[in-house]
């Protein structure tokens, strides 16, 4: 690879360092495979619209990569990165999104965020999330076409939990009680199964102890609520992520510090924004709805766009948690996670630079 001249006598280049077609392609396809359960669940829950969105997103990604790269570098679809980008874009779309939006998001990610910089391994911003952010900025409201999950009562209006929460809390400030109870009490259409399961647990297990679970625990836990195609089933996402971490394809530092710092901030300060007091953030709802888990375990730890050093990765993950907290609780979107990650991507070259000049002992001289 590197006969790229760099100032100084050492060549410090960004990841990945081993560009063998075999190993990195295998890793990428493994990540894709680990997303399949969550994707399949999304299609099962939301039906044909979800399948179309995924098809369009992945198809556009593959087609644009082929069109842009084939004349110059030959066939690169085998490395799996275009497929993965398209898949993540599709999974972050609501099932009812107008089809030109996932197409544009995929195309934007592949052409502008990835190929303009030289292709695999050379981009500094996550292509899929950048495409999603571009879609939100460009089409905003038109994007929020939720589809009611399978098994919902016919005629219920589909609304993602976070969106519903925002509306409820805007109207009635200082509503006390756990966030999930607030959501349930506002009449959010949790499923019948959820009602039966929670009712059974409350009656048989918790009544003697004096407690009671609010409605919706089962739905959110299992992933039977409205939302973006890939974000609803947290257990399936976590299972896939656990496999990736066990196989050392994904380093745990970034996702765990991301989720941990977000959870702590949301738990402690989350309630303050709506006047519900300290420690009233509703960590369960915040983690089990929205795309935080998906972004934290499948997009944020991408070695190409994450810091090189372990120290850097801790700071990066923590910073992502802070950004996600501010953007979700104060920002204009209901779910700040994708934009928090690309915001973090902007700081990665800086983090790398600072860690490098601090750790290498060369200090300012090394910076030249």
């Amino acid at each position, binding site marked *: 690879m590197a006969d*790229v001249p*760099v100032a100084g006598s050492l*060549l*410090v*280049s*960004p990841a990945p360092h081993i560009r063998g077609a075999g190993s990195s392609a295998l890793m990428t396809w493994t990540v894709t495979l680990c997303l399949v359960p969550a994707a399949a669940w999304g299609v099962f829950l939301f039906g044909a619209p979800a399948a179309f969105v995924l098809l369009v997103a992945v198809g556009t990604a593959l087609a644009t990569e082929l069109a842009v790269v084939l004349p110059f570098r030959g066939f690169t679809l085998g490395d799996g990165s275009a497929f993965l980008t398209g898949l993540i874009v599709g999974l972050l779309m609501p099932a009812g999104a107008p089809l030109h939006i996932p197409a544009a998001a995929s195309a934007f990610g592949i052409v*502008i*965020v990835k190929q*303009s*910089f*030289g292709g695999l391994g*050379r981009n*500094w*911003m996550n292509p899929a999330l*950048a495409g999603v*952010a*571009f879609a939100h*900025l460009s089409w905003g409201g038109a994007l929020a076409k939720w589809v009611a999950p399978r098994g919902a009562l016919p005629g219920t209006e589909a609304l993602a939990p976070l969106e519903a929460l925002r509306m409820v809390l805007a109207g009635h400030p200082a509503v006390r009680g756990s966030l999930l109870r607030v959501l349930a009490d506002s009449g959010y259409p949790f499923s019948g199964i959820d009602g039966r399961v929670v009712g059974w647990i409350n009656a048989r297990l918790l009544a003697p102890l004096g407690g009671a679970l609010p409605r919706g625990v089962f739905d959110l836990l299992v992933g039977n609520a409205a939302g973006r195609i890939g974000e609803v089933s947290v257990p399936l996402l976590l299972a896939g992520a656990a496999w990736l971490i066990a196989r050392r394809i994904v380093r745990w530092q970034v996702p765990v510090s991301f989720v941990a710092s977000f959870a702590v901030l949301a738990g402690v300060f989350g309630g303050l*924004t709506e006047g519900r007091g300290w420690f009233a953030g509703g960590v369960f709802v915040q983690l089990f709805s929205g795309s935080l888990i998906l972004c934290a375990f499948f997009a944020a730890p991408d070695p190409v766009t994450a810091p090189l050093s372990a120290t850097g990765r801790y700071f990066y993950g923590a910073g992502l948690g802070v950004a996600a907290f*501010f*953007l979700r*609780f*104060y*920002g*204009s*979107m209901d779910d*700040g996670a994708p*934009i*928090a990650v*690309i*915001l973090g*991507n*902007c*700081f990665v*070259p*800086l983090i*790398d*630079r600072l860690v490098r*000049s601090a750790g290498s002992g060369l200090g*300012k001289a090394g*910076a*030249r």
Partner: protein
Amino acid sequence: MSWLGIIVTFALVDNVVLARLLGLCPCAGAPRTFRVILGVGICTTVLMAMSSLAAWALETLFLDPRDLGFLRIPCFVLALALLALLLESMALRISPALLRAAGFSVRGVAVNCATLGVVLLVTLERLSALESLLAGLSAGCGFLLALTLMSAIRERLDAERVPRSLRGLPLSLVSAGLVALAFSAFDRVFLANLLGR
């Protein structure tokens, strides 16, 4: 506007480079060492703060009472130029070597779209003297943030094999566009929510 409001508005929501698109020439421009970048950023921040205060004084004490609004631009440009010369002569007196080693020209840093733009934006808000100073300072910090981010990204790009025609400034601009995409998360709604509606 409250102090937090001023800081968040001028540093993030209306970031000089990434939202207002001022000061692009130094940000996307020729690669420089980290130390030079820091120098440019700090110098610009100081100048933005001082010139915002000077503009407040000019506006409140001279232009407004006599209804001389049409003289605003020449007066502000003159103020910026004089401040630049002041800083230059101070630096020369402290250490001429410092000025040579700085790697940038104080005149160039002092009189450009970013500094005049910030001065005009601050004056438009009709803030008090102290608030104007804070606004100029915040804008400068926002500029410094954008500058350091862009310089680190540029350094990383220069070490990569990027498409030939896009190498250098074009890709720098595309990267700036992507950073602006990320920073678009900081919008008016964010500001309103942060300040408690």
